[in-house]
């Protein structure tokens, strides 16, 4: 904990980013507890459809960011959407991390044929950008499971698609960190002392690869959130009948031409704020844990 506090001392950018993330999380998880779901019948009021933001003519105090075509209060809808986006991002990162982390750890430490097989698999997958792959996995899942799937199913498919699309990056990062650590003399010292492979992997190597894992997980959280939003925006991921930042923007995009810009622009800005904050934090953690910059002084 002290290390974490030290990581932020005297750095305004990361402090602002971390504060913003905390605020957004509170917004996303507290507001839905006290408001009706705008995507159920009780949450919509068709009379308020296209209500503009508060500072424009016809704006209402209860709807500071206006309302969409169905009369959903945007400030509530965005909280629900943000909650979905954060959860989809976080769970898919955990899935990618578990698959990729385990494979990377084994590949890096065992080496040889095991390593070769895992890495060839990774190479084939790397011929495709993760975003494209997530689209394809989602599309194929749809082909298998059929059109008429429920919202919950759609979310699960998106999470798994993104998780699978990103495992390679975790695997490669962890593998290369493990290989660097494996050749350090402290590992050799532990071997000479007679420690077992498992003990060396868990007690010596794992603590040293945690930092890069934490960094890449943070950075990938941002990418996973973007990926979900992109899929949903393109009408592949989460259906427009369920709130996520991407589906809100997709819905709002239909009214961009006719002048109701707020329906898409506010979710856009919220997404940007979240992603920029996560990235600033990730960049900072990367610099902080970078042994080239820190350490040996």
């Amino acid at each position, binding site marked *: 904990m002290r290390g974490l506090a030290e990581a932020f001392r005297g750095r305004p950018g990361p402090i602002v980013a971390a504060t913003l993330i905390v605020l957004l999380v509170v917004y996303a998880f507290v507001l839905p507890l006290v408001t009706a779901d705008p995507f159920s019948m009780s949450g919509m009021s068709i009379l308020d459809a296209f209500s503009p933001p508060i500072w424009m003519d016809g704006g209402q105090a209860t709807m500071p960011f206006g309302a969409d075509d169905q009369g959903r209060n945007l400030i509530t809808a965005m909280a629900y959407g943000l909650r979905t986006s954060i959860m989809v991002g976080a769970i898919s990162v955990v899935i990618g991390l578990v698959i990729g982390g385990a494979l990377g750890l084994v590949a890096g430490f065992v080496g040889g044929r095991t390593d070769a097989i895992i890495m060839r698999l990774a190479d084939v997958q790397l011929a495709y950008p993760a975003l494209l792959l997530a689209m394809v996995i989602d599309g194929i899942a749809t082909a298998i499971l059929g059109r008429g799937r429920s919202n919950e199913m759609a979310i699960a498919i998106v999470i798994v698609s993104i998780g699978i699309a990103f495992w390679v990056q975790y695997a490669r990062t962890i593998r290369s960190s493990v290989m660097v650590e494996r050749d350090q003399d402290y590992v050799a010292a532990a071997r000479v002392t007679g420690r077992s492979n498992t003990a060396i992997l868990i007690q010596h190597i794992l603590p040293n690869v945690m930092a890069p894992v934490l960094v890449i997980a943070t950075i990938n959280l941002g990418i996973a959130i973007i990926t979900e939003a992109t899929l949903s925006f393109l009408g*592949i991921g989460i259906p427009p009948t369920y709130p996520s930042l991407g589906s809100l923007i997709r819905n709002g995009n239909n009214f961009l*031409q006719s002048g109701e810009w707020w329906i*898409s622009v506010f979710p856009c800005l919220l997404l940007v704020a979240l992603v920029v904050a996560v990235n600033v934090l990730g960049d900072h953690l990367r610099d902080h844990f970078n042994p080239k910059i820190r350490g040996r002084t």
Partner: protein
Amino acid sequence: MIAHTTERILQTVLVLLAISFIAFLLVATLGDPLTSLLPPDASIADRQDLIMRLGLDEPLLTRFLHFLNGMLHGDFGISYRTQDDIGPMIATRLPATIELAFASLLVTLFVGVPLGILCGVRPNGIISRGVMLVSIAGITLPNFVVGVLLIAIFSVHLGWFPSFGRGDTVQIGGWTTGLLTLSGWRAIILPAITLAAFQVTFVIRMLRTQLLEVGQSEHIRFARARGLSERRIWSTYAMRNALLPTITMLALQLGNVIAFSVVTEGVFAWPGIGSLFLQSIQAADVPVIAIYLIFVGAIFMIINLVVELIYPLVDPRLKRSGA
């Protein structure tokens, strides 16, 4: 060296075969071509006829060989969605995508490279700091958000550029170009900027990092200690070291450009193969998805291979280490 080259080419072919096989399996196992291609009231004989025509009664491996053979002869199969041949579908849409990619490459080169050099040579200048600040946005903003915001500002609010389509096009042989009409040029600007946003920031950051790193290297210090002029040091001694990795990394980012072209084409309703792919995903049109996958995989693998084989010719450090 020759052994190494042959080996790499063989490896690439193997990976491409693996990709094709996976794509083929998708087509072969997912979806039912009979219900997709035949009208609901088709007779048993019609069904039998189609099964024979598509060779569905043969063993899987034979069908894969047919599939490969067909691809080599320009037969890419039939779309479930439109029931058209996939080959011509792609051919008519390819020019739009290539022109978009080309336009975004121009933006990247004329904006990204000079700014990257500036940020690397004068990292503490006012302009450099500003560029770096803006580039955070470029690297983090999702592609579609860039597109939506550009549309909101430049087409809805200011009305300068259209928000969808290619504008007027001209047919030259088999190629449909939008670059010969004014409306075509106006239409390509916003999509090209959207697609280039990521590459531009990528090039700026990459060049900056490389130049900063090279600028601190011992051989540049030695060049200074020999009294070489700053101009010579940056233009020759540092730039050569910085450009090579940047170009390589850029070439390897091609996959992302393809992915982002799907998004960009989706946002701007650009009639290229990206939006074709998108429609196919939405419609679970497996044959088109499969062909697109092979297509993208092939482009990526070949670019990779070319970069890897050309690199030693440009960088003397690798001249002899290959063999």
